[in-house]
């Protein structure tokens, strides 16, 4: 097995390579941005039931929701355990878990300012699966042929410790309609 840094950079290189050789040509900036820019639809946030024992009943992001609830606005494309229930925070892994080196993204609307933000979802890795606060929202989520917005895969894939533990949601930019 490759070491941490090797593996990380091999992974990023091949992403770039894949991109230049394939995706850039195939997908291109237009389609993805256009599609990421699509306005949020609250109704899209109907949770998938078995993943929703923590957050059943409500169907859209709500301003008063806290970050330990599935309906918290940043979680609009999050499928996994909330790190806020696992000893972490909305943007921090628990003390003994490693931050994933690659992520998927979503664009979620913040009910507080009605703006859309680009959210990067890091998995936390290398310790047993947490099992708390399982959520599953899929706004603009797509299958693996749109890997950067796919959430049915283990994003600890490029880490040395590959075991999935939980997921955080960091704001990394403004969404299209907010820009």
């Amino acid at each position, binding site marked *: 097995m490759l070491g941490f840094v090797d593996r990380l950079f091999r992974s990023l290189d091949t992403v770039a390579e894949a991109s230049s*050789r394939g995706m850039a040509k195939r997908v291109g900036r237009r389609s993805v941005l256009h599609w990421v820019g699509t306005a949020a639809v609250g109704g*899209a946030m*109907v949770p998938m039931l078995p993943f929703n024992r923590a957050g059943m009943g409500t169907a859209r992001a709500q301003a008063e929701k806290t970050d330990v609830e599935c309906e918290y606005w940043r979680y609009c494309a999050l499928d996994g355990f909330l790190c806020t229930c696992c000893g972490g925070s909305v943007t921090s892994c628990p003390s003994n878990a490693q931050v994933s080196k690659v992520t998927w993204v979503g664009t979620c609307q913040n009910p507080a300012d009605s703006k859309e933000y680009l959210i990067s979802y890091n998995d936390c890795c290398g310790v047993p*699966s947490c099992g708390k606060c399982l959520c599953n929202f899929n706004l603009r989520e797509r*299958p*693996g042929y749109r890997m950067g917005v796919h959430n049915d*895969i283990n994003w600890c894939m490029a880490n040395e410790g590959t075991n999935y533990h939980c997921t955080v949601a960091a704001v990394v930019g403004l969404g299209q309609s907010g820009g």
Partner: protein
Amino acid sequence: MRSTFLACAAALTFFGSPALSQEEIQPETVGNVTIPAGTEMLFSVDLSLNHVVDGRVYVLDAKTMKLLGIIPTASLGMVHIPIPGSDIYVATSHLARTTRGPRADFVEVYSGADLTFKEEIPISTNRAQALNYRSLFWSSSDQKYLFVQNATPATSVSIVDLPAKKQIGEIPNPGCYGIFPSFKTPTRFATTCGDGTFGTIDFKADGTGEMKASGPIFDADADALFSGAFQWGEKWVFASYGGNIYVVDVEGDTATLTEKIPVSAGVEGDWRPGGYQPIAVNSATGIAYLGMHSKGTEGSHKNPAEEIWAVDLASKKVLGRAPSVPSIAMTVSQGETPVLFALDALKAEVVRYEISAAGQPFALTPAGTASSGDLADQVEVR
């Protein structure tokens, strides 16, 4: 017999030797149950997300719904179950220290007769550790090759030569994901791509090959195809987020769209397919079954079914709609009188549905349930 004798021997060592009572009746022997040959088997694939290193397949008698045994799938392992009687294949990962340490990946072979482990074949460690989409792990039409979808997140497909018991190559399918083998050409498979094309890969005996892009087949923004697909004769049948069925022919050196069948267009209630395996096809009857939910919107594509719709692929007509458990994955048995199996996401059960006879109005009759495991997301029958 031997094991029982030894077992008693060991246990009785702790008793001095109460030989007196031993002589008085014939001790029962402990052995193994035999699964009757030809038993129709149902496979509920449980990713066990709360204990993600300990995934498993619950193998059930498809008629009685009784548990026959458990096959391990370890860490987000993929399961491929070909034609009846054949071996069962698992592509998975093991960490040297259960939840930590170096990762090693294998194709594992289990007996289709008694479910025992037979052998393991090492594969590269970039296998996609994903939910159980059947299209991420498939076999060639002649059962000689296995194809494993990789993601680092850059995507490629590992080619495993089963007779040679080794991986012979790894072919990039950048921007694409999923494996849809040709039904005629063992060395050919297609893959769905983010730009709406299909890539077709013909590989050589040395495991090398290039991907050839088709023309536009779907629009991943407006009407994305679900990850999985089902066989209909010699074509692959896909469901789309928007409520259409795409029939794709992958037999040529590039794939072609042969049919696009609107299923819910013009129907009240914004009905859409949803879940992880929202479509199943009985190849003989040419009827597709779709798990449909109402009030569908962008992002609702994993919602469980409220109804199951039957669609005649030849006439492109919806034959009927039946209420359903909240299903996130479905399969249907092949042959004359198909039986449908659905994973109830809320009860964590697999439900057996008998289907009304051909000619009769479409209806589903529940005829048995069983636990599907902690968090099952794929179901197969053979």
